């Protein structure tokens, strides 16, 4: 059971997180990676790294045999699966064991039992654990599912039986919407978990999502490390997590903790696990599911419990008894975590890809950032859009919150759109501040996402100055002999020159005049004197009239990216000749993002109405419906199922009527 080399069968922040502990324990570490991940930090951090495929997860991180082979090749004695991918795959756990290696996680049987939501629910009901009314039977036809749903009553949750982490989980408000949801959920479940089985569950409204971190060893000890609250979810994807829950009392904690331990014992659990509950305002709670792995949000528990959960996992996997008992567990202060996603809150949370031009993790007292990215790397379309987690701890919830607000602002990523402004807004929302948020909070408060930040004249002046500074520097680098004191000088007056920008969909024109050491820039009729001092790595100190502004920036030939507060602004310069490009005709349907087509329902000659579903694109593991933008007749379909598309590719053309 002992081992000196650990293979981490994962990527991104969790691979980095596990690597860090493994190395601190003196273990030799092995990473696996794909071509798309070749620049990822987990590859650099590990002692050895094995290439396992191009990019798609089906060919790499989900390929059990490749990973076991990699372990054998490198002499790894154990495999840590992280979360997602193969972490809750009982066959994989079994295969690892069969290969004579240690799987860092529970026994395959426990994974299997808890992994099948239907089985788990029956098991829990039998063990006396309170469960949400629902259907988890084997009858999986559309008619059967519809009938059961009507019996339970709407709103209802449709979930992948094999799922977890919000994947393949959808809320249905009425019977009419059910068939389409079942079809999407089933296909998502199939592609994500390899099994299309679904379960139904009564949707509990205004509940809180409370989960208990449990730990069990192979010697019969099971303890819990308190709860986490993860009510701040968007479409069942956790966005903010915290420990402890603002709604928790010591009595309720003892009661729910005991139930969680009971649930773990019922499946003979060993290792780290999470028992999820829904908590109603009345104090009634229901068992939701048990996740048989390390959770994304484990750091908040680590920060309040003062324990390294990965170290505990490794110790238990090596056969040790738990070094702490339930009585030893004390919870210190409060911790809150936010998930930084590559997605655009101002544009329907569309996943974003692109380069990471600038990356700076916040630091400071009580702040922890778990990230799996580095500057210069690309965010690829193949994987989960979560880039990093920002966690803050403090003696009180309010201290943790205010520290986190600062940390979100100070964590700067440029190159790819992120949800940082959304995180910032939530953290400062009165419902969140007062600890009243329930699972419906986000969807109710931000039904349209977060409106795009409206740039002001000052931002535009700064963007202009940054681009012009770069132009000037480039010209000077190309030029022959030009002394610094010549810059910004002309022996006779020149008129200001125009620069045209696009910020999102808005075109902005500025005029500028050079001065020695800076620029005078006119925006919307007002003038701004701007001078920028460059520091290392894109950091800029700008003086705009009387105000001094510090900003992280990334400037390329025609784009200026600027981090201002939590906002990450991207200005694109429009060059003459490129201006007034042809408007996209309403009847051309294009891919909103890169991804693979999983469905093409439109056929040439078909009459379509605005809003009709034409195709489904899977990107960043989420399915996106592509709908008709106009009423009309489909004239051509340029794509087929399975095709990989780039953003902007034309899929279908409609002759508008």
């Amino acid at each position, binding site marked *: 059971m002992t081992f000196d080399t650990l293979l981490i069968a994962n990527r991104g922040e969790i691979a980095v997180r596990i690597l860090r502990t493994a190395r601190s324990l003196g273990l030799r570490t092995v990473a696996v990676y794909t071509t798309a991940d070749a620049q990822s930090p987990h590859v650099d951090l590990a002692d050895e790294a094995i290439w396992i495929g191009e990019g798609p997860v089906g060919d790499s991180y989900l390929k059990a045999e490749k990973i076991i082979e990699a372990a054998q090749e490198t002499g790894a004695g154990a495999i840590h699966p992280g979360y997602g991918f193969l972490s809750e795959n009982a066959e994989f756990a079994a295969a690892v064991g069969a290969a004579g290696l240690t799987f860092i996680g529970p026994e395959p049987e426990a994974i299997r039992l808890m992994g099948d939501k239907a089985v788990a629910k029956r098991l829990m009901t039998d063990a006396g654990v309170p469960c949400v009314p629902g259907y988890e039977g084997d009858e999986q036809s559309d008619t059967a599912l519809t009938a059961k749903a009507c019996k339970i009553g709407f709103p209802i949750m449709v979930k992948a039986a094999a799922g977890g982490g919000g994947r393949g989980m959808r809320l249905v408000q009425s019977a009419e919407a059910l068939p389409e949801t079942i079809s999407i959920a089933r296909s998502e479940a199939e592609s994500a978990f390899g099994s299309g089985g679904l379960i139904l569950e009564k949707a509990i409204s205004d509940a809180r999502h409370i989960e208990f971190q449990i730990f069990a060893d192979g010697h019969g000890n099971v303890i819990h490390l308190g709860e986490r609250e993860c009510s701040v979810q968007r479409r069942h994807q956790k966005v903010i997590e915290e420990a402890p829950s603002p709604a928790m009392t010591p009595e309720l904690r003892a009661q729910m903790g005991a139930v969680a331990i009971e649930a773990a014992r019922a499946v003979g659990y060993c290792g780290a696990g999470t028992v999820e509950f829904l908590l109603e305002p009345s104090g009634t709670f229901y068992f939701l599911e048990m996740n048989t792995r390390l959770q994304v949000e484990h750091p908040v528990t680590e920060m309040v419990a003062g324990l390294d959960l990965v170290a505990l996992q490794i110790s238990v996997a090596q056969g040790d008894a738990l070094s702490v008992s339930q009585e030893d567990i004390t919870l210190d202060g409060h911790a809150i975590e936010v998930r930084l996603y590559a997605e655009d809150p101002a544009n329907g949370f569309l996943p974003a890809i692109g380069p990471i031009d600038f990356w700076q993790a916040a630091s400071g007292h009580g702040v922890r950032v778990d990230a799996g990215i580095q500057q210069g790397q690309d965010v690829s379309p193949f994987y989960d859009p979560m880039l990093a987690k920002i966690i803050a701890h403090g003696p009180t919830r309010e201290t943790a919150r205010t520290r986190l607000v600062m940390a979100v602002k100070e964590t700067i990523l440029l190159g790819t759109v992120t949800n940082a402004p959304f995180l910032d807004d939530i953290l400062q929302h009165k419902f969140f501040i007062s600890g009243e948020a329930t699972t419906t909070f986000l969807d109710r408060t931000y039904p349209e996402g977060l409106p795009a930040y409206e740039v002001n004249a000052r931002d535009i002046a700064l963007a202009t100055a940054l681009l012009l500074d770069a*132009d*000037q520097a480039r*010209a*000077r680098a190309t030029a*022959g002999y*030009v002394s610094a004191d010549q810059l910004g000088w002309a*022996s006779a*007056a020149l008129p200001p020159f125009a620069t045209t920008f696009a910020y999102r969909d808005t075109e902005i024109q500025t005029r500028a005049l050079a001065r020695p050491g800076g620029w005078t820039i006119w925006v919307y009729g007002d003038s701004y004197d701007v001078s920028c001092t460059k520091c290392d790595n894109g950091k800029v100190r700008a003086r705009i009239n009387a105000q001094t502004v510090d900003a992280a920036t990334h400037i390329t030939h025609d784009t200026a990216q600027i981090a201002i507060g939590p906002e990450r602004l991207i200005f694109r310069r429009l060059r003459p*000749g490129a201006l007034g490009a042809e408007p996209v005709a309403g009847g051309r349907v294009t891919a909103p993002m890169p991804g693979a087509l999983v469905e093409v329902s439109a056929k040439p000659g078909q009459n379509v109405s605005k809003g009709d579903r034409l195709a489904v694109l899977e990107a960043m593991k989420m399915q996106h419906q592509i709908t008709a933008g106009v009423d009309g007749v489909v004239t051509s379909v340029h794509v087929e199922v399975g095709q990989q598309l780039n953003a902007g590719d034309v899929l279908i053309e409609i002759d508008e009527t």
Partner: protein
Amino acid sequence: MGFVSQIVRDSEVFAKNRADMLALVDEMRALEARPIALSEKRRERMEARGQITPRDRLAQLLDPGMPFLQLHGLAGYCVDVDDPEQSVPGASLLVGIGFVSGVRCMIIVDDAGIKAGAMVEMSAAAFLSAQDMAWKQNLPFVHLVESAGANLMEYKVEFWANGGKLFRNLARHSAAGLPNIAVLHGPSTAGGAYMPGLADYVVGVKNNGMAALAGAALVHAATGEKANDRDLGGSEMHASTSGLVDYLAEDDAHGIEIARNVMARLDWNKSLPVRRSKEVQPPKYDADEIAGLVPTDYRVPYDVREVVARIVDGSDFEDFKPGYGPATVCLQAVLNGIAVGILGNNGPLDPAGANKAAQFIQLCGQADIPLIFLNNITGFMVGTQYEQGGMIKHGAKMIQAVTSVNVPKITLYIGASFGAGNYGMCGYAYDPDFLFAWPNAATGVMGGEQAAGTMEMVARAGFKRKGIDPDEAKLSAQKAAITQHFTKQENAFYTSGRCIDHGVIDPRDTRRVLGFCLETCLEGRARTVKPSSYGVHRF
């Protein structure tokens, strides 16, 4: 311990000097503003045609924040009309050296806001001067063309005869390996049409760009054909049918963008050796103080070293032979990291001063050190003592040295520059690489009063010879007339109007102007161009 300035900043003299000098600078800026205001009147009309104004074209062409040196900004002043109040300087051209895609080049923009960009009397002189400078400094040439050709109402046969040199120069530059780029922004007929015709690269702007030997009116008069201008010479036609246009642009801004791209693709600086980088120290004394230390009346003496201390790196220089011919000042200094020899005047040139200057010039020639001539010279000394001391031959030595020395020469008229003193101090006829005047400068064969006084003596001698009493009224009228005749012509704005310098500058810009000129000279001399026996033919 270096030079210590004797200037008292808060003195009355300083304040008066400064007020006088800045009044002259304001006057210069006001003159420069005249063509701007006149051209600006056409803005609405041009914008309605989808065009941008000539000055906006220039601003859009230049690299943001890179230096720009205007040339011949006052060309034509008092030539178009002999009335300082009514004259509009500029000669319908914007001329200067600036940077396009990182390339230092000579730029000419037709000021189409004034008489449709038609050439006026001094246009050719300014144009030829710019071409000459591009030739000497190995500069590529960019011309933003929109010119109705020569103004027929002002036609003089010699304009036409001399004007041919413009095109000869374009051909010569092309053959010498100095590329020229033309953007055809608007109607350009006759001579205007040969500007793109002889350019190496031609960008034509859709809808407005038009080049034809004769426009529709002249064609009708000459052959009776009823043609229209777009068919005769529209950019679209030239891009597809005649082959005159190489790149077709959507609009003015796009045309300029293409010109910038073409310039970038020349990789023009590939042959330029990297200059050993040096820490450049600014002068210890503020350049702004020049305005207060120099009296605008050249008769009031001051130490030219005070000016130099506000120009050169670290205000530091070596005084060459300070005790010998002390009125002639020869200094070794560094400007923008470039070693220079500076000649200045604290009085007239005497035999010792001329000898010292000739030696100093030769020493700079030996070490290939650029020379800067700060002219404040009323002339070579006259009188028996000086004639007997060999003033003529010593002055001749200085003129020979100036003529023959093969280093960059930059001349500034910072006060008086009279007579042969101007020649010795590398005046216009001595072909300096750059020649600028301060607005207080006075140049000519001699001062107006001297001339009037001389003529008075001659007249009085005449009266005496004829044995009649001098007609005092006539003498005094003659004196006034001569003084006025000379004084008017010695004015810096007037001389600049005649294109016998490259422009008038703000004295406070002196260090930057000199730095720019020196760097231009150094680049030009360090560059290898690839000549061929013919200009690039347009097929």
